């Protein structure tokens, strides 16, 4: 984030226009026929784009439109453009684009969608610019374009003469944008950049502590705000000692918001605005609020768990029913019953939620580490009654996303406060705010029964799943699909769902649904394998079967086609081969386990090798991931980092994370009682392998996470004979003698 952006915001469009005019450079704004996904919601069939700027000096600037939160997209997608453009990566400039639906199309970063939604278009973008530069050179030299070729930021003629891109910029700017058909993409075998390990473009800023993040935003005359909400979700302010607060040193103002009536928008609370963060934090300690806690204050996690246990045998809503599961269980050679339970958890981004906003002359200008600029701007418009075209939004780097910043609650809070204050104001959540007012990953309880026949084949699977929702629908990731594996693969199968309606805010957490279902189902498959005396790998391959495609139950093959069983089989075998599955004999206390999962268009199989000490201490000695995310790994370093991070995150979530809700409020407060995984608990060795396939290139922020926990738990069982059926791990006694 450079100083001009912060101190004297210039609309990005003006900036490009200005630089184009003043510098005589080539600023390309052109229209590409959209494949649908990056299509601007308001403009129908065409998505306008403006991503590349070439100055006469030769400096190439690429605009990154997607929010960056550690997933590496600010480096990887520009790499795609640079590859096609034939410019050296060294010296390239990448700017974070502001929110601009008209110019950039969809800018939401979530669901591991940034890569698949933009990959092909970005190839085309880069290649189009290259084609124009080649045309400009051909025109300059009065030679056929076919005699010219682009390389290393210059165009070369067969005669040996060359012109640098900067020298061609002015001419290229006068040329028409070629049609898609006239643009030739590079042959992947000629890639120089894609597939290499490229450090993140912001690395230098990160390691030198330059301002980058939302919390680092600083504006002249800026004030600092905190926002106190009711500890019980959705509670309303009855009264607060505002006069006393306003009299405290450094405090500029204090006021109450009644809220917009929704648990995930502007919730009721008290804002304190002060001259510094510390003045605001200090004043807050004197704040006394009387709350109307509402009905949520009667709800507790333990109460719901007890209710689920009471109702486990009662019927739920049937999600899927194949064959006759009860008869099959009655006739099975072996039946296994188990209860699996996982708690609510928090996202716990290391950068607490924050946003800076400035309300001036009817314009709301906002700087925010959001994952979803359009959603956030839309919410501000709706709640604060500001036309969308009066909202200017600068996207800052986010200190972690994990889905938390798909919610815009903190964003609308900051804008609401700014509307009341005649100055720019930065809202900073404390860690306590962050843990107690997250939009949590919903917990869940599964009551499972599985049966294997005399030949050791899994023939029956029955599950009653208890989940949580709000306003009549399950929280994000709290809805079990009828097709969730192994649904469709087991002849006698029944899954049912019962939802508890609460006022607890829930939101997407890295690989929603998948992040827990993979743990439950791959742990339970392992239980069945052991009951049947079968090798866990061999049994899984048998379940997957010989077919190559499993259509979705709707009969459809949406998003590239149902479940590609062949891809999963291959990646599973690949993981087993890389790990050396079955090759090693383990002493007691050591073992290996595996799992696989398909989500977010990625096929992932993983194998864990663990040691459980006699005192129950777990150590992951080795963790192998095999990933099929299509034809091309964009940035190998970034991709490996996502997988390594997923492994650590999956392990950390399994080991320690737990949000407990009592009387409608979270009982944890900070990292003291909500511990995150530390370096001392991290695996000793993580290996990541990519299986290249002909399928489209897809994202990696999420799909490597779901199989981590079951692979580790299955390894724990192999090591100790103890089955982990509850998260976090601290609830299971792993000691052995």
């Amino acid at each position: 984030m450079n100083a001009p952006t912060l101190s004297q915001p210039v609309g990005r469009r003006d900036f490009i226009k200005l630089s184009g005019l003043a510098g005589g450079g080539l600023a390309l704004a052109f229209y590409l026929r959209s494949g649908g996904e990056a299509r601007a919601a308001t403009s129908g069939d065409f998505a306008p784009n403006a991503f590349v700027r070439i100055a006469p000096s030769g400096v190439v600037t690429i605009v990154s439109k997607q929010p960056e939160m550690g997933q590496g997209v600010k480096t990887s997608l520009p790499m795609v453009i640079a590859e096609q453009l034939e410019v050296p990566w060294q010296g390239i400039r990448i700017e974070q684009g502001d929110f601009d639906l008209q110019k950039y199309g969809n800018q939401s970063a979530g669901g591991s969608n940034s890569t698949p939604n933009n990959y092909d278009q970005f190839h085309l973008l880069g290649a189009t610019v290259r084609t124009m530069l080649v045309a400009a050179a051909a025109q300059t030299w009065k030679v056929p374009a076919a005699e010219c070729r682009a390389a290393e930021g210059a165009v070369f003629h067969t005669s040996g003469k060359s012109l640098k891109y900067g020298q061609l910029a002015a001419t290229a700017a006068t040329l028409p944008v070629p049609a898609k058909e006239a643009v030739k993409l590079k042959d992947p075998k000629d890639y120089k950049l894609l597939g290499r390990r490229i450090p993140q473009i912001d690395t230098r800023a990160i390691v030198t502590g330059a301002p980058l993040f939302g919390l680092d935003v600083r504006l002249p005359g800026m004030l600092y705000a905190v926002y106190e909400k009711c500890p019980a979700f959705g509670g309303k302010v009855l009264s607060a000692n505002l006069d006393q607060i306003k009299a405290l040193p450094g405090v500029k103002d204090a006021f109450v918001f009644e809220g917009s009536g929704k648990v995930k928008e502007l919730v009721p609370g008290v804002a304190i605005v002060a001259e510094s963060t510390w003045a605001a934090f200090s004043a807050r300690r004197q704040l006394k609020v009387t709350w109307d806690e509402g009905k949520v204050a009667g709800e507790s996690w333990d109460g719901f768990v007890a209710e689920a246990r009471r109702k486990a045998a009662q019927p739920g809503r049937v999600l899927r029913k194949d064959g006759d599961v009860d008869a099959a269980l009655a006739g099975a050679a072996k039946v296994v019953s188990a209860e699996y339970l996982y708690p609510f958890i928090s996202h716990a981004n290391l950068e607490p939620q924050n946003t800076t906003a400035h309300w001036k002359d009817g314009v709301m200008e906002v700087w925010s580490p959001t994952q979803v600029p359009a959603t956030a701007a839309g919410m501000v418009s709706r709640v604060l009654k500001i036309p969308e075209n009066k909202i200017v939004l600068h996207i800052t780097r986010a200190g972690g996303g994990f889905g938390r910043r798909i919610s815009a609650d903190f964003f609308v809070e900051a804008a609401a406060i700014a509307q009341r204050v005649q100055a720019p104001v930065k809202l900073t959540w404390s860690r306590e705010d962050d843990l107690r007012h997250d939009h949590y990953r919903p917990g869940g309880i599964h009551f499972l029964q599985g049966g294997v026949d005399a030949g050791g084949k899994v023939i029956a699977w029955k599950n009653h799943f208890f989940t949580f929702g709000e306003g009549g629908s399950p929280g994000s990731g709290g809805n079990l699909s009828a097709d969730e594996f192994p649904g469709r693969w087991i002849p006698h199968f029944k899954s049912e769902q019962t939802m508890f309606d609460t006022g607890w805010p829930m939101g997407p957490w890295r690989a929603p649904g998948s992040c827990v279902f993979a743990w439950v189902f791959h742990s339970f498959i392992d239980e069945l394998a052991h009951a049947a005396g079968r090798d866990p790998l061999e049994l899984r391959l048998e379940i997957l079967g010989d077919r190559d495609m499993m259509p979705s139950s709707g009969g459809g093959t949406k998003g590239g086609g149902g479940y590609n069983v062949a891809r999963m089989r291959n990646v599973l075998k690949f993981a087993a081969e890389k790990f050396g599955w079955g090759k090693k004999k383990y002493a007691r206390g050591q073992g290996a386990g595996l799992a696989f999962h398909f989500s977010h268009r990625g096929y992932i199989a993983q194998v864990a090798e663990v040691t459980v000490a006699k005192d129950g201490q777990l150590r992951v000695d080795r963790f192998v991931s095999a990933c099929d995310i299509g034809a091309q790994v964009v940035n190998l370093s970034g991709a490996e980092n996502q997988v390594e991070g997923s492994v650590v995150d999956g392990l950390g979530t399994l080991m320690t994370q737990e949000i407990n809700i009592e009387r409608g409020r979270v009982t944890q407060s900070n990292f003291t009682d909500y511990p995150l995984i530390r370096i001392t608990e991290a695996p000793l060795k993580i290996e990541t392998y990519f299986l290249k396939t002909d399928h489209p290139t897809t994202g990696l922020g999420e799909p490597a996470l779901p199989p981590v926990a079951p692979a580790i738990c299955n390894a724990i069982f192999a090591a100790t004979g103890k089955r982990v059926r509850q998260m976090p791990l601290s609830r299971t006694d792993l000691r052995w003698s």
Partner: protein
Amino acid sequence: MKYTLNVNGQSRMVDVAPDTPLLWVLRDNLELSGTKFGCGVGQCGACTVHLNGVPARACMTPVSTVGRMRVTTIEGLAAEAARLHPVQQAWSELDVAQCGYCQAGQIMTAAALLKDNPRPNDQDIDGAMAGNLCRCGTYLRIRAGIKRAAEIAGGMKEASQ
């Protein structure tokens, strides 16, 4: 209260409440936002700075207790702007960061470790770095980064001998 602090080799004047944590003095008053706020209770290490060369949690250090101690922040870690500290170099080479938010604190802790122990093994590293959380899970690269930084630092020392 007025305080004169020695920050990154410069004398800096601030006028703040005595209980203000050094973290917020750095971020709000001195415009040094490289030192991060993660928890405010000494649990995450995002706010790690050096006080007289020793790593300290800026969120737990009231400004009134700093006195004449030398404060070094991530912005001041590289002695000369043209050349990064070996830890910063290693972090860049190995692309350690994901979101990057924890990394200033990680780097400050790692730099202090290497000063005491120029050739740390995995156990030394885990021991020294246990107070620094990384929510993105870059721990394996942090281990590798510290080893690489030790190599770079060793090479630099040899070169200057």
